[in-house]
Structures are given as structure tokens and as C-alpha cells.
């Protein structure tokens, strides 16, 4: 499973793509597969702050809820409104379904995240479920 080269990854299966001072965040294809059909995404409001390593929202399937952990700290500038009415987009194409965009408060946060190759290794070790 090819994980986009310009993304960085967390062990909680979020991806982040930096673009200078801003970044885009979503969840990986592995995450959506484990969750099953996604029915709801709970995201923070524009203008609020998220903190690296802390939860900023959640993703729900019919029978489970998964917390979303911030890959980096920053202020939310945009939230993907499409997900409010069509959360299934994440199931169809997780890497192209962004959840939110933030203004990074500390771009160095990304340095401690996993590269695509490291993430792929991590996922295969977690035991193809």
C-alpha cells in the first residue's frame, strides 16, 4: 500500500502534509479500513488550537469511536465541510480526504513523525488485521 511520499505519519494513524507555515491533516487508509464504514467525524471549530499528541476530535463507525490525535500543534484555519454530510469519502479515499488545515505553531513537530517507509513498516508489524 503506497503511502504518499510528501506526508508524515503518526502511530495513531493520522497523516500530515506541511506546506510552509500551514499543514493539512487526515487519517490513513489503514485507519479507515480498521474502523469500517465511517458515519461521523467530530472536528474542532475554526480558530481553536490543537496540541501535538493530544486529541482534537474523533471518528465514528457504527460500533466504535476512535480519538484523533494531533500530529502537530497549531490553530485551525479550515475544516472540511464535506465530511459533515459525506463522511464515507474517507473510506473511499483516505489520503485525499483532508479533515482540517492548521497554521503550524511549531513546524519542528513534524521532525519526530514517521516517514512513509517507517509508517508502512509500523503498520505491517501491527499485524495485518
Amino acid at each position, binding site marked *: 500500500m503506497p503511502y504518499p511520499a510528501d506526508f508524515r505519519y503518526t502511530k495513531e494513524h493520522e497523516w500530515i502534509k506541511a506546506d510552509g507555515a500551514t499543514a493539512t491533516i487526515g487519517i490513513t487508509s489503514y485507519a479507515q479500513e480498521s474502523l469500517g*464504514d465511517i*458515519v*461521523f467525524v467530530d472536528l474542532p471549530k475554526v480558530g481553536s488550537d490543537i496540541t501535538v499528541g493530544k486529541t482534537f476530535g474523533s471518528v*465514528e*463507525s*457504527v460500533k466504535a469511536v476512535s480519538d484523533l490525535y494531533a500530529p502537530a500543534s497549531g490553530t485551525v484555519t479550515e475544516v472540511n465541510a464535506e465530511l459533515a454530510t459525506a463522511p464515507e469519502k474517507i473510506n473511499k479515499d483516505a489520503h485525499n480526504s483532508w479533515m482540517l488545515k492548521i497554521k503550524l505553531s511549531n513546524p519542528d513537530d513534524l521532525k519526530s513523525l514517521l516517514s512513509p517507509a517507517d509508517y508502512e513498516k509500523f503498520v505491517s508489524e501491527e499485524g495485518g488485521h
Partner: protein
Amino acid sequence: MKHMTRKATRHVNQNEGLIFEKSSPGKAAWKLAPLDVPDVDTKKLLGSSERRDLGNMPEVSEIEIIRHFTRLSTWNYAIDLGMYPLGSCTMKYNPRVNEAVSRLDGIANAHPYQPEKISQGALRIIKILGDCLLEITGMDAITLQPAAGAHGELTGLLLVRAYHDSKGKPRKKVLIPDSAHGTNPATAAMVGYAVENLKSNAQGMVDISALESQMNDEVAALMLTNPNTLGVFEQEIHKIADILHAKGGLLYMDGANMNALVGKVRPGDFGVDVMHLNLHKTFSTPHGGGGPGSGPVAVKKVLEPFLPKPVLLSKPEGTLGFDYDRPQSIGRVRSFYGNFGMFVRALAYILANGPDGLRQTTEDAVLNANYIRKGLEGVYDLPYSSASMHEVVFSDKLQAKKGARTMDIAKRLIDYGFHPYTTAFPLIVPGAMMIEPTESESKEELDLFLEAMNAIAQEVEEDAEIVKTAPHSTRVSRLDETAAARKPVLRWKP
């Protein structure tokens, strides 16, 4: 169906729609007696508060209502039809005499605020039920106010909190085993406690060394279910209680599994300080499609001052009353006195059994669970070898190799005429199959259940698809829960 057994149920396939789809202006099922006082001008009395329109409320006749609900009822499984092997639910027979006595006029039509003088019957029912439950649990004082098990848990933890506050040392967290029912952590959070997970050991019991290292003076209580959700009795319960008490913590017991203990052992005797009971589990009150329940909370003397008010009072002249003068009480957890109708039913159950009946009931419950365990051992994976009390937990590990999971096996069980067992709980057993037959099942019924479960295991080996796409015999096939959650339709619209 290759392995059709002697028992299967089919659902009557009536295409009954929603009651609104039968509605038509002018149809009526009601008639009021004529007014014996002067009629009123509603506009004059209510002014702008007068309701303009009752919208889409239905208009139907009495026979349509009778047929509507009768047909709907035939789509339900029920204890009256067959076994529910649901773990920790204790789906036992709901005796009909319970229903009859709850409908006696003085009991059914008693207003909660009527004078004490004409409430002695109700008060006596509350007293005697309370006394019986105290004897059964080995505790010192009891409140019947909580409306259900989860409500009882809330009350119990509020008592724990009040106790620690009164000592001047409010504590911050509650320990909860990873095998616990979801209401336990949800309740702890509602009371403002942080939840700390307590690992189970390889035998499925509380890990004593983990408890020792996690127990400190910030822990208010341990919320324990005993037997636990694996159906296993905590053999080290004495050590558990001692570890908690040594550091000033309290032992809370979730009484969901009391059906394994009544008449054989009492929680108060093995160190429990506060516990809730589920009258709709152990004490036979009907589930009614999801409620009502009733969750009395029994405590040791040290927690008595904090009980919700009012408490029952025995007056010197022999009458009963309610005492509101309780300065340390946690207050009320609901209006009035609790689900009184359930007290009546639970007491009728206790009186029908007596001490010998209750003991025999518990023995049969444990006998039934062990009989099932023996009959399925080797056919399904048994994750913990510890002795089972009134329930047993298997897993779908063997069948998962062929792609059949616990939910599939459960759905296939429906085609054999049974309600599914509890799937995917407790969380510590992946692919769990939690089975509690209760004492209400005969040997014949248990043998039919074993036959069905064995047949399904064989089907998984020979033709797993039929299991994975089950059920096949019901009025509706598997329903799209994803669509229901993505775009919820929660009411009918014209």
C-alpha cells in the same frame, strides 16, 4: 439449510406499516364521559397559550390499534418464546403473579404524595423488600430510589464521594477492571472521577500485584463485578478488599452477576462496602423491551448517613414513614421513591421462592452454565480455563480462521430459534461469545441450544457463507446500520 434441527422459529410475515399510515380523519378509539361541569371557552382561558394544531398525531379505531400492536409483537423474540443466552443479562422467567399483584387498586393507583396514613401498604412493601435484599447481600442499609443499574452505580459512586469528602480527603480516581461493563467508566466520569484501568491476569481475574501498585490514597474505590464478566469468581476477593481498605479506599461491587451468589454467599461478608442490585436481572422483573429496571444500592453502616433521601423510618407506634431529616444525604437521584412497581414484582418473586427456592435457583443457574461449558468445550475456543459460575465466555478464534466471527455465529443462532448470546463483550476477549442460560432453562432447552451451536460450528467448517450471511429466516434480513447512523431518520414524516 443443511443442518436443520428440531427447533426453529419463523416470524409471522405481516406487512404492518406505521400507525400513521393507517390514520384517517374521523376515526376514533376514544370516548370521554360527558362533562359534569360547565364547558369552557379555551381561547378566553388560555389566550396566546392555546395550542393551534396537533399536527400529524394519528386518528385510528380501537381494532386497528389492537391489530397493529399484536402484529408488531409477533416480530419480537421474548423469554416467553425461548432462551436468551445473553451474558450478564440474567434473562430469567418473569412470573405472572408479579404482574397481577402490581395491578391491585391500592398499589397501582397510589399517589406518591398521598398521606402516610393510607400508604402503610406501600411502605411495608418497601420495608420488607429492603430487609430481604439486605439479608441476601449481607449489607447494613439500603436505598431503593435508583431507577436502574446504571442509576444505582451513579448513586453508589456519589455515596463513595460523599464519604471521602466527609473525611476531609476527597480522592481523584476510581479503578475499573478492563473486563467491566461500559456503564462503570461512564458513571465514574459523571461523578467527576478519573478512570484508571486495572488489568486482568491470565486467569481472567484481577491482577493483585497490579492492584497493589496502583492502589494509593488518590483512589476512592475499585468498581468490581463479582463474579466478573467472564463468569469467574474473584478468589482473592479477601486480598482485594484488604488492599483497598488498608489505604482507605472503598470496594464497590456491580451486582449484575448476583444470580451466581444469592443464598450461597453474601457480598457484605467478603468485604464489599457498597453495591447495586439489578431487580430486572436477578429478581425477575420484566425487561419489557429495554426497561424499566430498578437499581437498589446496599451499603455498609459507614455509608448509611449519605443515602439518598428520604429513607424509610419505623415509628415507635409500629407504623412506617419517610424520614427527610438527613443532613449528610447526597440528596435525591430521582423524584418520588424509585420504581415502586418493580419493588412489588421483585418482592413477589422473593416470596414465591423463599430461602430454599432462592438457593436452588442459584444452584440451577450455575449448573446450567457449566453444562453448556462442557457441551461446547473443544468446539469453541475457551480463552480462560478458570471455573465458570453462572456464565461462560468462549471466543470465535477457531471459527475466525474460516472467516466466521462471533456476530455471524450469533446471527446464525437466530435461524435455530434462539436469541443470540452477548457478542464482543467483555472487551478483553476478542471475538467474545458470552453465554448465561439462567436457571429458567430446562435440560431439554439446553440440549437444543448445544445441538444448534454444534451444528453451526460444523456449518462454518463446511459452508461458512451460510453463517456469514445469516439470519435467513427472519422477517427482515441484516439491517443497514451504517446508513442509519450516517443519515439518521428518527421519526416518521408525512
